[in-house]
């Protein structure tokens, strides 16, 4: 199969004459177009092309004709095609080349700054409105569960409890243990100078139970489960599964959101308790191993430092964080439109938003606690 084409160009005073031979296809056309571009301008008014030697031509070959017509049009004339073979004529008819496709780039046109600013603003407003609607729907759904708890999909809820809680235990445990270890290790260097070794226990226990335990757990859960919720619901939106739920008469909030939120609120506080325990164990290893504290002394100091209020407060906070993470994850999933890229954005956004909201809420709760607690 001959895959090459020849182009002869002869420039007369009144006419440009071109002779095309061979196969006009994706292999040969780029070079021909390149040569046409380098024909010296201005062009004569008449442009003639002899197509008698064209053996094969596909839609790429039509580009050459289009380009020649443009050249002829630019110099105010019309392209004269000579000895056009039937197969070429048929192709040009099939492609309806008499009405050439409109010019202009097929790349996405980036709107100007003002338009983009407007679009972004509308997006934020739209998002805020749908956020309110989502929170409202979720709240009414959860409230209706208080009246009729039997409507909760128990199997799903238990499965999410496993995924959010049990499956996260190893990583939460490991990170917390190391965190306790590091805190004890770092503070020991300072406290040793004053002979205050025993306060390592207080420091680790108080810092973890009051602040770091709930926060670290929340961050891990946001990364593991908040993202998973967003991706799961987002993919369901893309594949019309959410539409199917709606038309089958299920409420997505009940079917998809409630099990995730309830499971998270139940298990994340438990994870926090484990996080606290593992961190204290980490501190203990340093305390007993390198600071010459006895096991009893370390534990006694830990117990005397912590009040039951501290522990409850940490657990309460982590329940609030769980509520935030799970609803944000579900909400971001719901906002998915289109395809794979949108799912990715939703997942990222779920994690970033959750972590931001967790830290923000933690700060607000810290201020409230400061003035409220006697």
């Amino acid at each position, binding site marked *: 199969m001959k895959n090459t084409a020849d182009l002869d160009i002869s420039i007369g005073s009144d006419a440009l004459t071109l002779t095309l031979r061979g196969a006009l*296809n*994706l292999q040969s*056309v*780029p*070079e021909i*177009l390149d040569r046409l571009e380098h024909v010296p301008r201005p062009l004569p008014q008449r442009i003639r092309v002899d197509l008698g030697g064209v053996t*094969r031509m*596909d*839609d*790429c070959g*039509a*580009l050459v004709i*289009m*380009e020649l017509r443009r050249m002829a049009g630019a110099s105010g004339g019309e392209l004269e095609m000579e000895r056009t073979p039937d*197969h070429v004529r*048929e*192709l040009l008819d*099939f*492609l*309806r080349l008499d009405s*050439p*496709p*409109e*010019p*202009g*780039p*097929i*790349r*996405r*046109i980036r709107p100007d700054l003002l338009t983009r600013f407007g679009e972004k603003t509308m997006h934020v407003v739209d998002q805020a409105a749908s956020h309110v609607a989502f929170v409202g729907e979720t709240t009414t759904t959860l409230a209706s569960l208080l009246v009729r708890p039997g409507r909760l999909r128990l199997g799903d809820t238990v499965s999410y409890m496993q995924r959010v809680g049990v499956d996260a235990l190893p990583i939460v445990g490991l990170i917390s243990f190391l965190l306790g270890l590091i805190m004890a290790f770092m503070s020991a260097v300072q406290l040793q100078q004053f002979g205050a070794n025993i306060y390592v226990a207080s420091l680790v226990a108080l810092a973890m139970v009051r602040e770091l335990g709930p926060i670290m757990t929340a961050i891990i859960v946001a990364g593991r489960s908040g993202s998973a919720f967003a991706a799961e619901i987002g993919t369901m939106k893309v594949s019309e599964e959410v539409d199917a739920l709606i038309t089958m008469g299920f409420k997505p909030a009940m079917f998809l959101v409630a099990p995730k939120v309830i499971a998270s609120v139940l298990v994340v506080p438990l994870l926090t308790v484990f996080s606290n325990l593992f961190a204290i164990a980490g501190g203990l290893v340093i305390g007993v191993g390198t600071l010459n504290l006895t096991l009893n002394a370390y534990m006694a100091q830990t117990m005397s430092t912590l009040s039951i209020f501290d522990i409850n407060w940490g657990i309460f906070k982590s329940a609030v964080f769980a509520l935030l993470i799970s609803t944000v994850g579900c909400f971001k999933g719901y906002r998915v*439109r*289109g*395809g*794979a*890229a*949108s799912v990715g954005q939703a997942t990222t956004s779920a994690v970033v938003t959750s972590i931001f909201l967790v830290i923000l809420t933690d700060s607000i709760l810290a201020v409230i606690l400061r003035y409220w607690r006697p």
Partner: protein
Amino acid sequence: MSAPVITVRGLTMGFGDHVVMRDLNFDIHAGEVFVILGGSGCGKSTLLKHMVGLYKPMAGRITVAGMAMDPDDDGAYRRILARIGVMYQGGALFSSMTLGENVALPITEYSGLRGRAVDDLVRLKLRQVGLEGFEHHLPEELSGGMRKRAAIARALALNPEILFLDEPSAGLDPISSAGLDALILRLNRTLGTTFVVVTHELSSILTIASRVVMLDAASKSIIAQGDPHELKEKSAHPFVRQFFNRQPGMEE
């Protein structure tokens, strides 16, 4: 008859322990419109994915364009890929790109065309599938049938020698479907493009197919092979007769 462009020898395909088809043998010749038939779930799309190297056979060999299909051999696999185009069942358009960008992607990557020529060619491709004017739309903004046609335009982008189409006309209205058949026949006649098509559409099969194979899930093998009109008239196999003549199911 011209030399085979695809040969399938002793192909056994399946997943894990589950065998889908056993010991398939057939050739596809240059310039044919070869249609793979069979009941739903019998492994037609799986066979197609074996032929384009996405799945590995459990046993047997496939050659495409004279080269052994072996996705592990990167160089040979790329040489095969340069000569084939594939349209997937669901369209598989990239959702983050407009239709125009979807079609332009292979053209800008693998051809010497640039600038305005790419834009023009993309518009001509979209015109051939009846989607001119939609180049700035995202796939999500289109109907299922339109996405399918756009996917065909993308598969056609480089005018490959062999085009694999997985259920091209499913979900298309009869007019678009007939237009697609005309496009297939046109490309086949003028450019000599070989087509490997998985389809259920009886009218389409009888219009376009020069040869068919029919797969059967029960026997895990090919039950009929040949010219579709002859099979329709002469085949003695009950399933084949049922398929072509739309007879209600026969009790066995």
